């Protein structure tokens, strides 16, 4: 066994993910920011937008659910663990920072996928047809990885006060929701809005979800998935690099 080898580090990352699932899925802030907030946001939007078709609304709900849930767990883990000194325990264990980050991302990704699949089932139960199942599942997987990497990026500032990170996280997440075509279709956006929208990975996920439910899309589906993949790689590499630099400052 080579403890520093890739396969061994992946096994240890999975141990981190299992620990996160046991501890953090049911923490208050995760449930509030990951589930209740998007649900209430969606309900508020539903009340005021009766003229929009249900398939449009469900697509938005799925997009929002994945974005909020996949970014709910990951930003909070490092500050919580820093505060509880358990991060110091991990830092003295034979696991690389990259593997710790990856383990946290796995937990966040699985949380996002699980809750999002429930919203898909709700949509189907409401009678919304799902036209492209495989496309939707692939995009959910890629986008969940991308959003969990965003969540980990939000946790880079070396504070051990979870509420600070949650505040920063909300400050970035809410504007992204409004510029990503969830509430306003991309076709109806002004040019400046569209210019902002193309910078948000959520835009591409919402587009591909809408394609899966309605058959209509703004960008080609392949572009949506590839751009999400590129965002995932860039954010993952960035968060691993940055956490490696900032982790000693949390100790």
């Amino acid at each position, binding site marked *: 066994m080579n403890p520093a080898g890739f396969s061994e580090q992946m096994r240890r990352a999975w141990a981190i993910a299992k620990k996160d699932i*046991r501890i953090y899925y049911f923490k208050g802030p995760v449930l509030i920011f990951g589930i209740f907030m998007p649900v209430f946001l969606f309900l508020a939007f539903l009340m005021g937008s009766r003229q929009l078709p249900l398939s449009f609304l469900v697509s938005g709900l799925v997009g929002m659910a994945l974005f909020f849930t996949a970014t709910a767990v990951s930003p909070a883990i490092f500050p919580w663990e820093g505060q*509880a000194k*358990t991060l110091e325990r991990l830092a*003295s264990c034979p696991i690389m920072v990259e593997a710790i980050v990856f383990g946290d991302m796995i937990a966040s990704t699985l949380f996002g996928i699980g809750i999002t699949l429930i919203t898909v089932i709700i949509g189907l139960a409401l009678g919304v047809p799902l036209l492209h199942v495989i496309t939707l599942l692939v995009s959910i997987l890629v986008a969940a990885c991308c959003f969990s990497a965003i969540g980990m990026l939000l946790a880079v500032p070396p504070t051990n006060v979870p509420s600070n990170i949650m505040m920063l996280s909300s400050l970035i997440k809410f504007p992204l929701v409004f510029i990503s075509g969830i509430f306003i279709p991309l076709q109806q956006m002004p040019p400046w809005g569209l210019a902002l929208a193309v910078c948000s990975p959520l835009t591409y996920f919402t587009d591909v979800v809408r394609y899966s439910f309605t058959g209509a899309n703004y960008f080609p589906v392949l572009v949506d998935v590839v751009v999400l993949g590129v965002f995932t790689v860039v954010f993952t590499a960035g968060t691993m690099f940055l956490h490696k630099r900032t982790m000693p400052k949390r100790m």
Partner: protein
Amino acid sequence: MSDAIAVTHLTKTFGPNVAVDHVSFSVQEGEIFGFLGPNGAGKTTTTRMLTGVIPPDAGKATILGHDIRSEPVLAKQGFGVVPETSNAYTDLTAWQNLMLMGELYGLPRARASERASNLLGTLGLIERKDQKVQAYSKGMKQRLILAMALLHEPRLLFLDEPTSGLDVQSSQMILSLLRDLNQAGATIFLTTHNMEEANRLCHRVGIIRAGKLVAVDAPEKLKAAIEKVHRIEVSFDREIPGDALTTLPGVTSASRTGDKWQITAENRDAALRSLVVFSQQHGATIVTLNTLVVSLDDAFLRLTQEASP
């Protein structure tokens, strides 16, 4: 015997403060090494650098043959850490904490379970292994932390104030386990404030003050080194001529206090031998014979005060 820990010019600064200033020392395999110093001297910072928690600004630390900076995973695989503050996951049970450690150290599940059961049994936690750690007392948490550090049978164990604030029972249990581990071949790096603990347990101690290492030696040698003139207290079953005592080889002076003689000597060994021969020559029986050496507390205070700015 090879070095379990080799440290050269290890340095750490926090802003303008030099927390650890070019510290160099080594710890041999199988040794219990005590790392002593007043609060804020740099003990914990040194330990954190040695365990890979924080990177040094300069210098090098080799742990079990692996550079902690360039080969951190290989170095960490060989040691266990018991920090001062309990850092088990309080939302998990003791068993879940141990299984997590097993996975993080790459232990097969069956081996991890076997080790966990044994350690929890030895440390008196087996009955509460399925209880969340948040319900544990401080002593129980510290015992669990020790179990977590020992699960993978490390060759080297770092302990930072392991018995601080614990009840006598927990302290004794931990110290007894450390002795057993050392007898089984484990190297122990112990950071402590407790001089008595260090004196009884450690083969050698290092004393750090204001980030600088001011002494490294065996406790007895340290005590002897700071006290150049040794004091011996002796009493006989009959009157003996005091003048004769002062002429004995190795004895510098002798004065009477009650029924005892207080003797100062530059060479303690020679003085003791002379006293035995003297008692035989004068037909006197030695009733008590005490070498009044300085305590490790005295040595610590003297060394840290001498080094203070």
